C-alpha cells in the first residue's frame, strides 16, 4: 500500500502540473538571465557594490506579469558591502528598489544568510523555490521566491531571483484548477498548499503526507493508499495532489 503504481492514462491534474511547470520555468528563465548578466560583471575582477547599478534596466524590465520582484543580492564585494539590486512591484508607477537593513545592531536588521532563498542555493549550489512564505523582508506578502546561485570562479557569490505573489499565481491557475474536475491542491515539498479548489485544502494550510517528498525525489507520479495521486511538477519542488 502507498506504493507507486504505473498509470497508462494521464492522471487528472497532469495538465495543471504541466501549467505550473511552465510558469515556474518561465520565472526561472528570468532569474537565470539576471544571473548571467551579474556573473559577467565579475569577468574583469570583483566589482564594487555600486557597480551593480548597471543591472538596473534589466532588473526593472524583468518585472511584470506574475513577477512582482526581481534582482540580485551578492556576498560582500570589493568594498566589503553586499551588492543589492532588487526591485519590486509589477506596475511601472509603483516600482521601488528594495532597501535592506544590513546593520546587525539594528532592530530591523535582515540577516540575508538566514533566508531560505539565499541559504539554500548557497548550500546546494542549485536553484530553489522558497515558499509559500510570508515575506516580511520585502513586500510583506504571501510569496514564492525563485532563486538561482551566482557562481564566480567556482565559488558561491550570491543569488539572482524573482518573486511571485501566491494570490496572483492562484488567480492565474484558477481555470486549470477548475478543469481538474476533482479535489486538487498544488503543494510544496512540505505539503504546504499554494492553491487548491476546495475549502479543505486552502492556501497556507498543510497536507501532512510523507509521500509527497518521496514522489518529488523520484520525480514520478505516485498513487497513495487512499487513491490520492501525487504528480510532481517537472523537477521543481512542487506537486499537484488530486483526491478521487
Amino acid at each position, binding site marked *: 500500500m502507498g506504493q507507486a503504481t504505473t498509470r497508462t492514462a494521464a492522471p487528472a491534474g497532469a495538465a495543471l502540473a504541466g501549467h505550473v511547470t511552465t510558469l515556474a520555468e518561465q520565472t526561472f528563465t528570468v532569474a537565470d538571465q539576471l544571473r548571467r548578466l551579474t556573473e559577467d560583471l565579475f569577468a574583469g575582477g570583483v566589482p564594487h557594490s555600486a557597480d551593480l547599478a548597471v543591472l538596473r534596466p534589466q532588473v526593472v524590465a524583468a518585472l511584470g506579469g506574475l513577477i512582482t520582484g526581481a534582482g540580485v543580492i551578492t556576498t560582500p564585494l570589493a568594498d566589503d558591502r553586499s551588492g543589492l539590486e532588487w526591485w519590486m512591484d509589477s506596475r511601472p508607477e509603483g516600482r521601488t528598489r528594495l532597501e535592506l537593513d544590513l546593520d546587525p545592531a539594528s532592530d530591523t536588521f535582515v540577516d540575508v544568510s538566514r533566508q531560505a532563498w539565499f541559504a539554500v542555493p548557497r548550500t546546494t549550489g542549485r536553484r530553489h523555490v522558497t515558499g509559500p512564505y510570508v515575506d516580511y523582508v520585502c513586500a510583506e506578502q504571501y510569496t514564492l521566491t525563485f532563486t538561482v546561485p551566482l557562481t564566480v570562479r567556482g565559488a558561491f557569490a550570491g543569488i539572482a531571483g524573482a518573486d511571485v505573489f501566491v494570490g496572483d499565481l492562484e488567480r492565474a491557475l484558477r481555470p486549470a484548477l477548475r478543469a481538474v474536475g476533482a479535489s486538487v491542491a498544488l503543494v510544496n515539498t512540505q505539503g504546504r498548499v499554494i492553491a487548491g479548489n476546495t475549502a479543505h485544502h486552502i492556501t497556507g*494550510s498543510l497536507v501532512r503526507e510523507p509521500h509527497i517528498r518521496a514522489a518529488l525525489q523520484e520525480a514520478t507520479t505516485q498513487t497513495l493508499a487512499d487513491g490520492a495521486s501525487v504528480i510532481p511538477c517537472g523537477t521543481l519542488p512542487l506537486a499537484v495532489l488530486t483526491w478521487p
Partner: protein
Amino acid sequence: MGTDRASARAVVFTPLDPHSRAETVVRRLTDAITFGLLTDAEQLPSEAELAAQFGVSRVTVREALVALRHRDLLETRRGRGGGSFVRAPADTVLLARLGELSLPNLQDTADHYVAIAGAAARLAAQRATPDDIERVEEETRDRGWPVHRVERAFHLEVAAVAQSARLAREEVRFATELGTLLWSPVLHSDDTGDPHAEHRAITAAIAEGDDDLARRLTEEHIETAVERLINLHLTLVEP
C-alpha cells in the same frame, strides 16, 4: 442588516486626517527618542528621506519636526553640516511621557495587540512544519538583544509561521507603535523574568500543535507586560 452595512462602509471611507499623520510621526519619534532608540546628538535623516520612510508628505514631516523642536526633543542646525539632531531627554521626561498616555487608549491598543498575537500563535500551531518550528526556536536563543527587539523578532516569526501576511504586517505595526513602550527597559528588571522562557513555552505549544495553549500562553505573556505598563502609569499619575 442594510443599515449596519451602510454605516460600516461609511467608517471605511472616512477621510484620513492629515494632522493625525503628523501626530503619528511625532509619537513614533518621541517614543524612539525617549526610549533611547535614537541617541543624543544623533542626526535624523533628511526631510525627504523621512517622508519616504514614513510614507507621508514632506509637509507632514516638517509639521512633525516643528512639534518635536517645541518639545525640546530635536535641535535644528542650519548651514553646512546642518540638519535635525536628537536631544535625548533625562529619565524624568521618559516617565512623564508615560504619564501623559491615555489609559483607555493604551488598554484598547493592548487589547488589539493581544488579539493579533494570540491569533497568530493559534494559526502557527495549526500550520507549522518542523522547519518552521526550528526558525521560531532560533528566535528564543539569547543573543544579548534588548527586550523590545527580542519580542519583535519572536512574534513576527510566529506570524510568518501562521502563513498570514496580514498578521505579520500588524506585528510590524504594533512593534513600532506599542513595542518600545510595552517592552521598555524601564519596565523590565531581573524580577520580571526571562522573556525567552515565556517564548520557549509558546514555541513548545506550537511544536506540539496545541493551538489553544499557544494562544493562551501568548495572550498571558502580553497581558502581563501590559499590566506592568499600566501599574507604572498609575504610579506616575498619582499626586
